[in-house]
């Protein structure tokens, strides 16, 4: 009994630590006044101001469009790369894989700085385009390493069998290989999209005048408190919560179907 109580105490303490800051933000996003800790009445004022804030709305659009384009481009490029690496001799494949690890291993700040120096060196103006190139670059390893294991798990001679049966290489890839590695490709795509949406450090170094949402939040938070950020946090928190609940309910249902 005492043990169980202690367990719950620990869990509740940690959840309080994790959620108290977020819930305070949510509560005070409905405050009519500007100051936290000083409740002056319920209002949707900050939500209205948030949606009328041209800077925030623009950076939201930039975040989503960069994430979408970068995810799609890196998934296509990365899947092709994985197919190529899979066909390479061991020695070459190892070299390519090791270099691919570099962006995953190196700190974001170093990746960001190295890309910034490249763009400056090449005389490319830092902005939307450079941010996009940087995002594709840091997404690629995650796509490659989600697709490559799927390729390696394929039966070894299946592809050759398809060719022997008269399929062209392209047809064999599309009809035999692709359907089987699809889960890996989708994982890579989702991984890339979320990484891209969440990125701050690399975008911060590779783009100057064009800000994504993280960059805008950073510069707002540096200037001090803004109730608009409370409203934004509440919306983001609710979105994440809803998405995760939907995903979990769906996978729970699928699990049930499989057992039946």
């Amino acid at each position: 009994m005492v043990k169980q109580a202690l367990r719950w105490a620990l869990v509740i303490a940690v959840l309080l630590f994790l959620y108290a800051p977020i819930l305070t933000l949510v509560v005070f996003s409905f405050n009519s006044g500007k100051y936290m800790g000083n409740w002056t009445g319920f209002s949707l004022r900050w939500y209205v101001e948030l949606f009328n804030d041209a800077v925030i709305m623009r950076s939201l659009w930039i975040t989503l469009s960069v994430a979408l384009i970068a995810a799609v481009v890196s998934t296509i490029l990365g899947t092709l790369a994985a197919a190529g690496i899979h066909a390479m001799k061991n020695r070459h494949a190892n070299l390519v894989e090791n270099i691919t690890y570099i962006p995953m291993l190196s700190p974001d700040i170093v990746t960001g700085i190295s890309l910034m120096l490249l763009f400056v060196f090449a005389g490319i103006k830092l902005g939307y385009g450079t941010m996009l190139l940087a995002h594709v670059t840091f997404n690629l390893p995650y796509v490659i390493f989600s697709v490559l294991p799927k390729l390696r798990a394929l039966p070894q001679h299946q592809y050759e069998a398809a060719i022997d049966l008269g399929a062209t290489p392209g047809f064999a890839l599309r009809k035999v290989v692709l359907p089987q590695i699809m889960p890996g490709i989708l994982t890579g795509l989702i991984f890339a999209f979320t990484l891209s949406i969440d990125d701050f450090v690399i975008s911060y170094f590779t783009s100057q005048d064009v800000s994504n949402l993280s960059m805008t939040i950073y510069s707002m938070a540096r200037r001090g408190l803004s109730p608009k950020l409370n409203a934004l946090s509440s919306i983001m928190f609710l979105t994440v919560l809803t998405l995760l609940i939907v995903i979990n309910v769906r996978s729970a249902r699928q699990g049930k179907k499989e057992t039946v």
Partner: protein
Amino acid sequence: MKRSAYAYPYLLWMALFIVVPLAIVLFYALTDTVDGRLIFTLENFSAAFDPAYVKVFLRSLWMAALATVICLAIGYPLALVLSSRHFKAGKLLLMLVVIPMWMNFLLRTYAWINLLSDNGIIMKALQFFGVENLSLLYNQTAVIVGLVYNFLPFMVLPIYTSLIKIEPNLYEAAGDLGANSFMSFLKVTLPLSVPGIVSGITMTFMPAITSFAVSRLMGGGLVTMYGELIENQFYFMRDWHFGATLSIVMMVLVLISAVLTRNNKNKEGGMLW
């Protein structure tokens, strides 16, 4: 066409956006501009080991280590509870622990700034009890709190994963062989959760030591960490050569730790004591 040709576009990309940029960083680190002329020099590296910078380096090492240890001290018992067979709600509660991880980390940090600020709810409560002239924000403790808050789920998740994989039979076997619950923790649970602990530490320590946003926002520029020092060189000091040098120092540190943790993983098979 050979099948490996599918990788050619990526190989080009890799050369252009991974290899060349790192070469440029190295180039900047090994050069300096004197009177508008570019000269090769090792000056930057000797400057990087100047006591003032070593101090910042050691401080961020210390702060990241402290944050990691706190995360481990909270995260391990928590993962133990959540993975316990006697704790039915474990899976759902784990999800609750992980959810904040999906929110933008700057907003999570902002949430703490809000709580700790002079107009924040904690200050209001303290003032109510007569505590005045106290600032909760912009000091080392605030930065540590920010780091722990941001990285705690990254510690809990891998440890939970390694704990849940342990065969329940092993505990029964340990009990049959006369081990009490403490001994079975020491001889079964702990050794088998080492991989989880190692990846938890890497997932907390690495981002903690290289982050600059958390320390900038919660330390207010008063508590500089190494990442912040690097950022300063590019945006305030405008000394790109020195910034590149510091980046290389950090990169080397990270690579060393990566190699160390990888060796640990290889030994894992023989770690049944």
